[in-house]
């Protein structure tokens, strides 16, 4: 070899600092742990020794005790049991509807961004027209007529109404990744469309997608709370969602003001869960952001 002088030597050392990212941080891990506990409880609720949410197992309005970790409500039902079972509904709505939204909006957005041209114009005009319409009104309208409301129906309605938003985010992410020279370079190597979408685009839009997914779940869980407040979520006696519990508590608190755990616990859990989701989502985004680590 003639160009010995260019063989990387100690002085040139490619990466003097091999990608030292800011550490993930203990707080993020706490949030992740908290999210994991919630998900586990929701998934494993039937197997765990969790009190039945609808059974009046004890005196109403009991304080916290070993038997009833968070006390009982005004009908003598175990609050912890109701919260744990309720997480199945709340998380189900959040994750289920986002699965629909990402399952449809994600691929469409990426395809539109990659292909551009007519396909993009047509899909984007449809999607952006829907985006212009306030989706909360559509959701309320559909849910007030489509009765009886079940978990599945709520997931479908929220999921479909979120498709345009996910489409827009994923399309924007893929557009920016797709305009990079490495996509052109891959084409020059002879890579076909599918390979480019999976090898070049997907890894670069995945972090954006993942963090947006977490924000989406958080938003939908909060939205379900709002729907419950309006009496538009699943009827509380089938299974209580967190939102339903807060709504119930608000009404019963008027009668029994000292029964504060009834409103404190569901609100706190809901808040903490959403906060943790948002925080982890944000941290993920910066963790995977390649440009932020580059010196």
């Amino acid at each position, binding site marked *: *070899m003639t*160009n010995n002088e260019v063989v*990387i030597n100690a002085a040139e050392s490619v*990466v003097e600092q091999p*990608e030292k990212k800011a550490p993930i941080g203990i707080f993020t891990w706490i949030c992740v742990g908290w999210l994991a506990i919630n998900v586990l409880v929701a998934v494993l609720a039937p197997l765990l020794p969790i009190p039945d949410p609808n059974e009046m197992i004890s005196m109403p309005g009991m304080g916290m005790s070993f038997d009833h970790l968070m006390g009982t409500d005004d009908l003598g039902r175990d609050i912890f049991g109701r919260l744990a079972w309720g997480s199945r509904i709340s998380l189900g709505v959040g994750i289920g509807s986002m699965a629909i939204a990402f399952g449809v909006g994600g691929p469409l957005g990426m395809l539109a961004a990659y292909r551009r041209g007519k396909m993009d114009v047509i899909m984007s005009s449809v999607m952006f027209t829907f985006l212009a319409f306030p989706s909360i009104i559509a959701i309320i309208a559909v849910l007030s007529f489509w009765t009886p409301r079940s978990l599945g129906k709520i997931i479908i309605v929220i999921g479909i109404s979120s498709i345009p938003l996910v489409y827009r985010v994923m399309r924007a992410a893929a557009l920016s990744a797709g305009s*990079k*020279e490495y996509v*052109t370079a*891959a084409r020059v190597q*002879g890579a076909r469309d599918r390979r480019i979408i999976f090898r070049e685009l997907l890894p670069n839009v995945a972090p954006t997608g993942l963090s947006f997914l977490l924000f989406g779940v958080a938003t939908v869980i909060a939205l379900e709370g709002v729907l419950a407040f309006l009496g538009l979520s699943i009827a509380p006696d089938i299974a209580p969602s967190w939102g339903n519990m807060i709504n119930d508590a608000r009404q019963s608190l008027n009668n029994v003001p000292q029964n504060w755990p009834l409103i404190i616990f569901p609100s706190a859990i809901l808040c903490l869960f959403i906060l943790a989701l948002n925080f982890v989502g944000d941290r993920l985004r910066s963790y995977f952001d390649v440009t932020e680590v580059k010196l």
Partner: protein
Amino acid sequence: MSEANNKVVLSVKDLEVTFRKGRQRVSAVAGISFDLYEGETLGLVGESGCGKSTTGRALMQIVPSTGGQIFVDGDELTSLNKDEARNLRRKMQMIFQDPISSLNPRRRVKDIVAEPLDCWKLAKGAERDSIVSDLLNKVGIDPAVYGNRYARQFSGGQCQRISIARSLAMRPRLLICDEVVSALDVSIQAQILNLLEDLKKEYGLTMLFIAHDLAVVKNISDRVAVMYLGKLCEIGPSDTLYAKPAHPYTEFLLGAALEADPELEQSSATLGGEPPSPLNPPSGCRFRTRCPFATEKCAAEEPQLRDIGEGHQVACHFPLVGAHQ
């Protein structure tokens, strides 16, 4: 230089690329013709926006050409269907200006270099690894230490080396380099230029070297073509063309190039004005709005590229040098 022989690898005939901008048409490349002989390096210079990159991209069919023909080893590229064209393009490779964005930041170096092998299913397993290691060694990157690193961990010069390794994986006949050293510091730029010279010899490459920097182009090219507003002004052996430019534009371009020497007299003749918009190019000679020698003939009649001897061609009604003896 003597390495070039008379076998034509790439022949471009009246290549045209027109972009549509709403109702308007940008005539980015307006009918250019040239041949590339086996083993030579042809430099393509001109100011930004004159259509250099578009020419390179049209040759690779990254942007569709709207007119003319491209012959690669005698096969016409633009008339082929998608799959045939993809096959023929295996003989050609391109390296881009921005070294960092040319590499996917989320892929490992050895996968990036192996990309063409994977696309064409040419090698697998140990064979693939050994080809990749060999290529990385050739460009001066230790595969054992850096092969598993992500592209984002490298500096501009190193990214450009990786791009070069990738482009050589298919053993191309023709390498198109689009401003490959423009984003690099001089000391790194010299490393890459030397590397390209060495690899060109080793792999018997034919190169189209696109750049705006006259000194860089002179350094690496056997012949140089000068472009202005989508047209070729002049083409010829680099030493002749730089010593005796025949087109007024080349003359001004050379006069404006700054030599790193305080005692060298700089040309006092600077070119005024700016290139007109390709949306609405001047009639006749496209340089006439800035040319001090322009006459009515220049506005009325488009000068064609014509031979003035010694392989030197110029498109000007009133060239600065007559026919070479």
